[in-house]
């Protein structure tokens, strides 16, 4: 509006190198100073309570310096449901350094550690973790992860909520190795169609992959009850009473909900993470990790089999303070040392810096967790309706290469393009046939063709959104269930896909997937912490990437053949 402002002459001159550094992507990330009084601190705060516990008449009457009469509802729930009263005083009397050493000492088995940790108070757990650096935290995770075999989970969503895209990307994701696939919506009313597409695509890609659709509690539970989805995880819990109430829940309501899922044979885990309380302005002056430990113990007390944690949607908060990623690695370890399944984050846009994005996941990838990402984006991030993940489809080859470089199993593998195209095409055709059978809005041959070769939602023909939304409503009104999907697929000649889905549905009758860290293998064997317990006992033991699986992970898009250096290994 006015003349250009004169550049103040008292600005110091910058070096050319400073200009280069200023332009680096990492400087687009936000960093803030700690403010421990308000809880804006990762895990080292003078304001966290000192550990203490006192038991009277088989009841915990003092917890971390607080007397029973002063317990808030988190203290009460943790004292009455999470902590093993019989061992509490003895375990808490152990020096924290001794417990920290047990976590990294291969001569102490996972069960030995659990015998101690099940009696610990939140502040004692924090006291132990504060002694551990990030390498020690990884060592602990390597042993304490509940399931011996690590796995990975993906997001499969569409910026246009296009079910054809979701089916094709789910098929590719399942084929590439994800054991679980999760979707959500831009327009919530689309949920039934997209959830069906996810299920069909998953069972095309690899039979036994489990699917879920993140929605508000009632609809999420209903889709699960109908057998359209196989598990649930967006059941949020918080570390302070006030934030828990802001979320319109209590530990008791959430515990009741956990049982509701189990009563329908549906696998379920809670979600929590560092930073959520301070983000909502009510950290009560406690560090992010201390509050997350309270969440983890609350989840344990509720009897839920697992937890998605690792800051999740608040990763920008611990990511901005000193030691934040150490705390995030620590919270994953705490979930595992409380004997819970841990789906360990790495699922939200985290940094502008590729180097930081990779560094962020190393403490989960290297030791292995039950699910290294609780949402690797199996669609381009622009299509990711969880607001973007730390990794997306563009990173597939990088991920596979890192697995090969370090000989670690991050749950994925390189798949040849011809196999991928087959799976994508088949998923779209199966959905086409199923929609026709169920009298839902048609999937055209053009859409099948687009799905086969597409990258993102922009590569598909537009669908008639109003017709789709009507169809979605019809799925609910007509009471369509997983069984109808099986029938439709079978009658349309997709016998193998129908059989895969029926086998997944049959699992809920057995309840095997309700046990800790359960997944379904390609031959439909439930694999959980019971029949695949982590038996790490030092070098040469535990899960090792070897044999057939290692041979599979040696493959990349381009590897020069040793026998014929003029060609590449196929």
């Amino acid at each position, binding site marked *: 509006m006015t003349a250009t402002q004169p550049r103040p002459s008292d600005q110091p001159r910058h070096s050319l190198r400073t200009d280069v550094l200023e332009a680096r992507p990492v400087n687009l990330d936000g960093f803030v100073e700690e403010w421990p009084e308000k809880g804006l601190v990762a895990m080292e705060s003078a304001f966290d309570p000192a550990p203490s516990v006192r038991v009277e008449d088989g009841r915990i009457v003092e917890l971390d310096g607080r007397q029973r009469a002063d317990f808030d509802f988190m203290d009460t729930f943790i004292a009455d449901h999470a902590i093993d009263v019989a061992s509490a005083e003895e375990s808490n009397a152990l020096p924290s350094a001794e417990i920290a050493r047990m976590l990294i000492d291969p001569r102490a088995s996972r069960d030995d550690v659990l015998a101690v940790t099940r009696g610990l108070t939140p502040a004692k757990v924090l006291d132990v973790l504060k002694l551990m650096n990030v390498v020690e935290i990884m060592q602990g995770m390597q042993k304490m992860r509940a399931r011996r075999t690590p796995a990975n989970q993906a997001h499969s969503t569409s910026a246009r909520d296009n079910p054809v895209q979701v089916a094709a990307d789910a098929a590719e994701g399942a084929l590439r190795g994800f054991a679980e696939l999760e979707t959500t919506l831009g327009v919530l009313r689309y949920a039934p169609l997209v959830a069906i597409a996810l299920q069909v695509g998953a069972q095309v890609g690899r039979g036994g992959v489990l699917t879920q659709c993140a929605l508000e509690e009632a609809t999420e539970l209903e889709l699960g009850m109908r057998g359209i989805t196989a598990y649930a995880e967006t059941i949020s819990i918080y570390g302070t009473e006030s934030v828990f109430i802001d979320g319109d829940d209590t530990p008791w309501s959430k515990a009741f909900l956990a049982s509701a899922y189990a009563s329908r044979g549906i696998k379920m885990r809670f979600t929590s993470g560092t930073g959520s309380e301070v983000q909502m302005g009510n950290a009560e002056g406690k560090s992010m990790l201390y509050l997350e430990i309270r969440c983890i113990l609350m989840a344990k007390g509720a009897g839920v089999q697992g937890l998605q944690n690792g800051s999740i949607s608040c990763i920008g908060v611990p990511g901005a303070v000193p030691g934040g990623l150490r705390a995030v690695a620590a919270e994953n370890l705490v979930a595992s040392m409380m004997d819970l399944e841990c789906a360990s984050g790495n699922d939200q846009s985290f940094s502008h810096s590729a180097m930081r994005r990779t560094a962020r996941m190393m403490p989960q990838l290297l030791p292995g967790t039950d699910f290294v990402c609780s949402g690797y984006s199996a669609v381009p991030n622009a299509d990711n309706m969880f607001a973007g993940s730390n990794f997306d489809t563009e990173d597939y080859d990088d991920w596979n290469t890192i697995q090969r470089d370090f000989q670690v199993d991050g749950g994925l593998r390189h798949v040849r393009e011809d196999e991928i195209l087959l799976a994508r095409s088949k998923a779209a055709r199966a959905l086409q046939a199923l929609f026709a059978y169920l009298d839902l809005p048609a999937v055209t041959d053009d859409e099948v063709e687009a799905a086969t070769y597409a990258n993102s939602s922009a590569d598909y023909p537009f669908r008639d959104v109003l017709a789709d939304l009507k169809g979605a409503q019809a799925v609910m009104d007509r009471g369509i269930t997983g069984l109808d999907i099986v029938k439709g697929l079978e009658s349309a000649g997709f016998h193998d896909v129908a059989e895969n889905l029926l086998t997944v549905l049959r699992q809920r009758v057995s309840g095997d997937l309700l046990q800790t860290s359960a997944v379904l293998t390609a031959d439909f064997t439930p694999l959980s912490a*019971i029949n695949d317990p982590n038996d790490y006992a030092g070098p040469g033991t535990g899960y090792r990437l070897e044999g057939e699986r290692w041979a599979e992970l040696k493959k990349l898009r381009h590897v020069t053949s040793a026998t014929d250096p003029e060609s590449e290994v196929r």
Partner: protein
Amino acid sequence: MSASLDTGLTRGDYPLSVNRPELLRTPTGKPITALTMDAVVSGELSAEDLRIAPETLELQAQLADASNRPQLAMNFRRAAEMCAIPDAEVLGMYNALRPRASTAAGLAALADRLETTWSAPVCAGLVREAAEVYARRDLLARAGAEDGEDTP
């Protein structure tokens, strides 16, 4: 059904779908082996056949106990009690447990209903415990208020 409540399962029995399929039945009394594609196509199966039975949840609770996971076992036992409660009522009960959603009398009535109508004493215990804590932490609905969410 066999005396499955006293099977003394051990970890070696897991997964039941592989190792002990003879113990598994649908709530409608069919053996799990009856859940075949032929049965789907011929229309013999309904969605009700694909639900978990309370007896199965008790078996899984025994496995959780045998794996040293008492809280998980307790969750499965609450779940076993809930199997018979219709979906909508389960959701209604969950909503009644939200903060400031129910009065003390409302929660007491819910606990009684769980105990008497649905033979769900463990769930009833959880609700009574919640009522006690909610009273102490000011989380009961204010008497006369339709919902807790009005004045800031």
